[in-house]
């Protein structure tokens, strides 16, 4: 039996209005690679932050090996002293310094730097972990994978017992990931306990020993990797049981006559975000959806179509005509609308009024030197406020004072006002109340029946099943399947996400 190095028991953490962690247990043993899995909002990052001292826990106990009584971790520095080191997704090293300096800087109170000692020690550490770089090399001249490994080497050299890798592979290519895994196995052999957070299922099954799944801030369970087939993992993350669910069908599906007129056709499209080339078509009056776990590339696909990420390769046709969309404004002028995933960051302009937020997209298309008169703008705003039932004191109210659901409706109104042929809705229902969710779904179906082509993306699978007539399924930045008609069931989606080969 391996020794337990870290135990977290009955951890509770709340933020105003949100229960982030509710009675969560987590156990890590020496020489174990332990995957921490969960969808958005499951509480993974909160748990990590509690462990590293970024957040203070509300209740619960943390035990480290060698300390009989519970430890209280108040800051990242204190976590490091206890032997808990974290390597983040983005490299937290200094690019302008050498590899050796990045290993040692900030760790002593010495007045002077002994370069010879630094370099020779660094040489030993890098050699010991088989990291292919030289101590005197400037960090920015190393590949991202090597930089990531240097960060890990620093953590290891600080005598860490628990190493947290928070999505370290998201910016690495396959070979680099392989190198990183070699390093992780090396550390495992030395008895370091590793917590590995990732969205890539393949990687979990390649390198991990155990999986802990969280959902909605609660512990779903801890499993040996061999006891948990992929499809069950997907089901556990999504919170669905296999097989015993009442099938929810697309209510509107029969009523929609799928015309053959393609509005959007993408061929081998790929962008700087790293998605693999994909084919996609959306027809007049059709609601399509991209399904997949967080980080599977759902948003990246539509962002490539809209020109929000730089397209590297591939063709895009709009109504049969080849187009080259390099910026969102070009997409808008071609009749594409995109309601972005992050409403607060990419959507609303908080200090502007509801009216100004509504006419923004249309104004951009028209050009800022030909502003609408106030009467025109007011007419537009009034029309959509009543059409969508936006609850606001007046069109002059700043949008930031509206509720999340109403803000989302304003953004929706902004795009409807441009009368797009093709509308992309990326997570339009996130963080809004049930009533508004249903309204938005109904509206999507209504717009489609009027001939608009729509792509609808949601983390909630039922929503997708209710609204979409065709689903593109994605895993690890690949399109892995397409489901329509009777194939559109939760089980089928999960099996497709998990990957046919590994599902039993």
């Amino acid at each position, binding site marked *: 039996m391996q020794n337990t190095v870290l135990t977290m028991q009955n951890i509770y953490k709340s933020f105003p209005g949100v229960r982030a962690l509710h009675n969560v247990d987590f156990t890590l043993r020496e020489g174990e690679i332990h995957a921490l899995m969960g969808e958005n909002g499951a509480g993974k990052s909160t748990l990590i932050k509690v462990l590293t001292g970024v957040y203070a826990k509300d209740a619960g106990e943390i035990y480290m090996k060698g300390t009989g009584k519970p430890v209280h971790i108040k800051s990242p520095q204190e976590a490091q002293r206890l032997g808990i080191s974290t390597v983040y997704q983005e490299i937290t*090293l*200094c*690019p302008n310094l050498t590899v050796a300096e990045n290993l040692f800087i*900030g760790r002593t109170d010495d*007045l002077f730097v002994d370069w010879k000692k630094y370099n020779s020690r660094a040489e030993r550490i890098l050699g010991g972990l088989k990291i292919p770089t030289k101590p005197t090399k400037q960090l920015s001249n190393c590949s991202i994978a090597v930089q990531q490994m240097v960060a890990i080497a620093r953590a290891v050299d600080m005598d860490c017992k628990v190493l947290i890798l928070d999505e370290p592979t998201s910016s690495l290519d396959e070979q680099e990931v392989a190198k990183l895994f070699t390093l992780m196995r090396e550390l495992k052999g030395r008895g370091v306990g590793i917590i590995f957070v990732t969205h890539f299922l393949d990687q979990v099954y390649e390198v991990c020993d155990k999986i802990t799944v969280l959902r909605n801030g609660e512990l779903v369970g801890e499993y040996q990797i061999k006891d948990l087939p992929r499809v069950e993992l997907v089901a556990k993350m999504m919170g669905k049981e296999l097989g015993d669910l009442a099938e929810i069908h697309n209510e509107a599906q029969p009523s929609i006559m799928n015309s053959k007129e393609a509005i959007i056709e993408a061929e081998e499209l790929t962008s700087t975000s790293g998605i693999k080339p994909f084919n996609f078509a959306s027809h007049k009056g059709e609601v399509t959806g991209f399904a997949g776990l967080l980080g599977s590339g759902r948003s990246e696909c539509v962002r490539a179509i809209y020109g929000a990420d730089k397209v590297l390769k591939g063709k895009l046709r709009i109504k049969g005509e080849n187009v080259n969309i390099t910026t969102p404004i070009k997409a808008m002028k071609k009749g594409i609308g995109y309601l972005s995933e992050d409403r607060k960051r990419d959507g609303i302009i908080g200090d502007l009024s509801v009216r100004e937020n509504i006419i923004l997209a249309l104004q951009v298309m028209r050009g800022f030197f030909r502003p609408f008169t106030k009467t025109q703008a007011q007419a537009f705003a009034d029309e959509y406020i009543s059409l969508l039932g936006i609850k606001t004191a007046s069109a002059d109210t700043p949008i930031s004072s509206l509720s999340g659901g109403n803000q989302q409706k304003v953004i929706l109104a902004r795009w409807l006002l441009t009368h797009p042929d093709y509308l992309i809705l990326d997570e339009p229902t996130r963080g809004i109340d049930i009533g508004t969710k249903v309204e938005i779904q109904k509206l999507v179906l209504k717009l489609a029946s009027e001939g608009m082509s729509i792509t609808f993306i949601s983390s909630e699978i039922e929503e997708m099943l209710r609204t979409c007539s065709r689903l593109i399924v994605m895993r690890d930045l690949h399109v892995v399947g397409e489901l329509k008609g009777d194939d559109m069931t939760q089980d089928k989606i999960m099996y497709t996400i998990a990957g046919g080969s590994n599902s039993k």
Partner: protein
Amino acid sequence: MNYRKHNLSFWSKLKRGESLTDSVFLLTITVSLFIAIYALSIIFLGDKGFSKIQMFFNLFNENAALIVIACGLSIVMITGSIDISVGGSTALICTACIVCLNNYNFNFVTTLILALGIGLVFGAVQGFLIAYLEMQPFIVTLAGMFLGRGLVALVEVNQIQVDNAGFEMLSGARILIPFLGDINKKGVFIQSKLEYGVIVAIIIVCLMFWILRKTNLGRSFYAVGGNSHSALLLGINVKRTRFHAHLLCGLLAGIGGFLYLFHTRSGSVQQATGLEMDAIAASIIGGTLLTGGVGNIFGTLFGVLTSGIVLLVVTAIGSQDPWWPQITRAAMLCFFIVLQSVICSRKKK
């Protein structure tokens, strides 16, 4: 010694085809540029005085104060900050010191202490506001610049000269360089002269190079300038490091201001106008990145010398018009900024 070692590793790296660190790469360009311009001016403008050895020493004599002040600016720029108050504090130091020398019987030592004190106060206050209260460095030091100029006028509105025999004697003293010199028109050998301020400037350059290269404080400057968020996570006290950078810059502005006084022996409200910009330009030409994290003190030294020689060349070519030196300097700055952005974009790939 350090410098030679640096250069050696540069050549060996070049042979092995390894990538150089950005600092060293930019330094190499500046040094080569200086040598090229100087060589060309000796060849083509030798009759205008460029072949004289004294010309080389004058380059230092005229720029000693600027070298020290530019060192301070390089340090704050490496840390990712900026200080544009140094011109104002220099003018304040000159006028305040002259008033004290002339009217209050200050001697050399007390004047030096006053100069350093003014510089340190500027550095400490600005550093505190920038580091601990997280104010914008540009705005804080802009205020410092206005304050400096304002205080000059408060102390003395008119232009004044040093009237203190002891100080004048010291400041008039020159080092005669043995065996080096030029033969004048009458065939008389005149030994080359060097001002004492230059010795101070060279010592400061070496000292700052050593601090940046060999002390943890110096390396923290680079780390904070490179990525202050990472530096924090790596365990560096970012605020204290920023404060120290500004304090050091203030101290160097104090020394530089004193050297300025030592050289000019006069003070006025309009004195050293644009000195801060000259220092920033010299730092940039010397390979310091305005974005922070990259820079080399020897580069700064050569940055000062390069802009100095370019100004001399432009004047010697016969253009008495005041705009040509400015336009030349603009062109040089453009060249170096383009070069730096190329390096930055290469780094992103």
